[in-house]
């Protein structure tokens, strides 16, 4: 039996490829498997090619990973368009539509000869059993359920429910199509070792969602009652989720005329005392710069989610990249600091978003959440989250004596000054983007400016020792250290597993807090390290560079970085880890890693 199964399905827009994938992962989640599913489309809005990658496993799944265990091609032209996104190897089981007319030993896959190939009359089976081509996805679901032993019952239930409205005949047609898939699989059995083992957790149902919806739900949980934003791929679903849900909590979603107005309304709502949020992607972030600076200077809490896509400029809107970190940390003019957090998975974005609200309210600051297109749009199984574990922090209001001669920007020891809002008697003050004294009155005094800068920076000092915002995995004294963040951290985690399985002495640091740089955390981590690697999906290895600003890294710590949309695989990382071991053992400088 296998513990881990990667399935890729491709076809054209109308083929139901995505819906086949979704029924599989839903069934798997219900049965307690772990899974992630990513989708990919051609550039057409409708029509064009579509594909999904589905990874199901008995233990936590950290990333969509590389080569396919199973490839399903509804037609070869579309399948091949996805190139490196759906890599087929000799070990891959290939299932394809017989009507393509391709012979099993003549697959149009240059340089690969898969050992196991099934030519299946998928369309014909759909037509025969369900009376319509449209049931192709049902046939595929049946085939995969049959061969890999997953989701038979729940998928059948799903089919019954889905088609109920269309009447008994349609339901039965689809059930037959599903059964035809099962039967085909039974008639053409796979070796037993390709089947998926039972889930470890004993079949406990998991949640199933994607990063954008999870982020929006976390915002609601954290107490957000205002969202202002403007649609942009791949972040729009955050606004869409909130638009469906937030009103019931007395909240509001405003689709503004542009990103400036979106975050502007958020700044206003925060000034008015509400927990508020915006979400966008690169081009929108570039437009929000001025408002982020204003919120920093006026010390107003807000959360700004950037679902990173490929940049610069319009770049590659539907692909993931980790290249907006420099911007998140440094885009506004003047000296200012705003925290930047990043989630590593769909599950993780829940805690990260709640933390972002907590930091925003506590430190009275904008906080950036750097999600990315992969996390945002992949469906992932999530273990049930115990929400009682999470603390919710509210901004500190002035009270009692603080409200006589109220000084909004009081130079307190912590740098955190109690904040009032309109409606609060005695709390009246002037907020502004202009430098000010403790009362909020404009000043051009260099001395006051220096003191206020100090206040606005020093208040974040405690944040730099928030070790709970970092995960250290592997042997704590290992001589080889990796650092990775965001969706790529899942790949690094898998590489760590592989390395440990080989007995390599390796450890991994995964920050949720990217900025400010938590110097002590990195210093501790690198104390034992002789060779190290920052693993990032950006051309410039942006976290590596930012950490260097503040931490003296050991000489042999480098970056392994790739531009967005070029997969980083656990196996590639493992390769480099092995080289590092050799280099340490031989005392030789290793070949330079790919470092841009």
């Amino acid at each position, binding site marked *: 039996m296998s513990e881990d199964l990667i399935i890729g399905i491709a076809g054209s827009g109308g083929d139901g490829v995505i819906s086949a994938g979704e029924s599989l992962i*839903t069934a798997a989640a219900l049965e307690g498997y772990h899974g992630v599913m990513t989708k990919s489309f051609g550039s057409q809005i409708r029509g064009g090619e579509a594909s999904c990658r589905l990874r199901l496993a008995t233990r936590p799944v950290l990333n969509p990973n590389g080569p396919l265990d199973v490839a399903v091609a509804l037609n070869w032209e579309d399948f091949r368009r996805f190139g490196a996104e759906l890599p087929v190897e000799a070990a891959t089981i290939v299932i394809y539509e017989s009507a393509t007319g391709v012979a099993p030993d003549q697959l149009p896959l240059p340089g690969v000869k898969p050992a196991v190939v099934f030519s299946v009359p998928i369309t014909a089976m759909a037509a025969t059993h369900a009376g319509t081509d449209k049931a192709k996805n049902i046939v595929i679901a049946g085939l995969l359920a049959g061969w890999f032993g997953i989701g038979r019952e*729940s998928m059948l*239930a*799903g089919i019954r*429910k889905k088609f109920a409205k269309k009447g008994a005949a349609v339901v039965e047609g689809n059930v037959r199509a599903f059964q035809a898939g099962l039967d085909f699989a039974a008639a053409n059995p796979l070796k037993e070792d390709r089947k998926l083992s039972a889930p470890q957790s004993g079949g406990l*149902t*998991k*949640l*199933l969602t994607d990063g954008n*919806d*999870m982020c929006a*739900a976390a915002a*609601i*949980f954290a107490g957000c009652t*205002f969202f202002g934003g403007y649609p942009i791929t791949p972040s729009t679903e955050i606004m869409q989720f909130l638009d469906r*849900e937030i*009103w*019931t*909590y*007395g*909240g*509001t979603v*405003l689709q*503004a*005329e542009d990103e*400036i*107005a979106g975050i*502007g*309304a*958020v*700044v*206003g*709502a925060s*000034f*008015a*005392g*509400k927990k*508020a949020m915006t979400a966008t992607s690169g081009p929108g972030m570039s437009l929000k710069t*001025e*408002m982020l600076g*204003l919120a920093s200077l*006026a010390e107003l809490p807000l959360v700004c989610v950037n679902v990173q896509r490929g940049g610069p400029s319009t770049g590659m809107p539907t692909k993931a990249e980790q290249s907006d970190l420099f911007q998140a940390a440094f885009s506004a003019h003047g000296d200012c600091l705003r925290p930047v957090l990043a989630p590593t998975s769909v599950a993780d974005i829940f805690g990260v978003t709640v933390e972002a609200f907590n930091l925003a309210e506590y430190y009275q600051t904008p906080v950036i959440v750097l999600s990315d297109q992969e996390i945002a749009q992949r469906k992932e199984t999530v273990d*049930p*989250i115990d*929400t*009682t574990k999470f603390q919710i922090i509210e901004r500190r209001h002035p009270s009692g004596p603080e409200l006589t001669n109220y000084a909004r920007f009081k130079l307190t020891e912590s740098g955190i000054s109690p904040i009032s*809002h*309109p*409606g609060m*008697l005695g*709390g*009246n*003050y*002037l*907020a*502004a*983007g*202009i430098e000010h004294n403790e009362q909020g*009155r*404009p000043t051009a005094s260099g001395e006051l400016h220096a003191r206020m800068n100090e206040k606005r920076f020093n208040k974040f000092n405690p944040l730099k020792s928030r070790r709970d915002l970092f995960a250290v995995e592997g042997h704590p004294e290992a001589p080889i250290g990796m650092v990775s963040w965001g969706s790529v951290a899942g790949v690094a985690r898998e590489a760590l597993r592989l390395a440990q399985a080989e007995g390599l002495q390796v450890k991994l640091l995964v920050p949720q807090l990217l900025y400010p740089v938590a110097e002590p955390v990195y210093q501790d981590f690198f104390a034992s390290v002789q060779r190290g690697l920052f693993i990032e999906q950006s051309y410039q290895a942006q976290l590596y560079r930012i950490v260097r600003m503040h931490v003296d890294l050991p000489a042999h710590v480098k970056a392994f970085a790739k531009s967005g949309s070029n997969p980083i695989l656990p196996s590639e990382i493992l390769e480099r880890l092995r080289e590092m071991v050799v280099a340490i053992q031989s005392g030789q400088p290793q070949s330079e890693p790919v470092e841009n």
Partner: protein
Amino acid sequence: MTTLEPPAKPISLAKFQAGDFKSDLKPIWCPGCGDFGVVTAITRALANIGRPPHEIAFVSGIGCSSRIPGYTTAYGFNTVHGRSLPIAQGINLANPELLVLVASGDGDGFSIGGGHVAHVIRRNIDITYIVMDNQIYGLTKGQLSPTSQRGRKTVTSSFGSLEDPVNPLLYVMGYGASYVAQGTPADMAGLARIIEEGIRFPGFAFINVQSPCVTYGQEDQQLKAHKANLQSLESLGHDPADRAKATELARAYGTKLYTGVLYRNPNPPPTYGQGVTERQEALKNKAVPRHEILNRFKPSK
């Protein structure tokens, strides 16, 4: 004379004097600047309204005119250039109980901020928007403004402006504003009155104030000229409910100085805030507790 309706949202009315709304921050405008009169008119209007300072949010952008909030005792927010409206909109939607005033300049409001006006109006956000229109960039020392007339020479139009000015009155009429008025500190009583009425008006209210810049303005833009030239719409017998006529009068912007209420929609549309509140009320009982929101992600067969 129009009768003033009771204030829209009588949260905590009390008796106030204009002085209760004046802060002790000394204005740093040039001596004689028209904006002195505007802040006085605003504080007078606020005294009549009777909402206490802490229930007022007074938002502005950047410019000489945008300094006004700091000279009042309200919660002030001197934001960034051109973005007072989006921010004020957020305040209004976050807490519809507040009285939200916005101050702006001709550059702040119609050049860099011009893109927001139409949207705030078509949403009918319940705020009062006061633009101090001096046909020049005052704070940055005398550059061309979007309301400067064609041909005007300034430090950025040494050989004369090559463009037609914007027409704030006509634009907001086109955007569907329900309350449109114009005033000048040359008629303080009238100015205070249209501001007060604007605040009481349920929904977005626009008030263009011809507020002279004594330092960079032209002679025909000073208080003296205003006094000589202004024509009160009331005295002209204009019916503010007459939209077509109001639009026609708006076209005279830049050539005639009409003061008073140009347009008051007799059947103002609902405000965005009302829509929001109704929706929140209607959906309230569908809420799952916040800590159970993740149940939305339970897969179902």
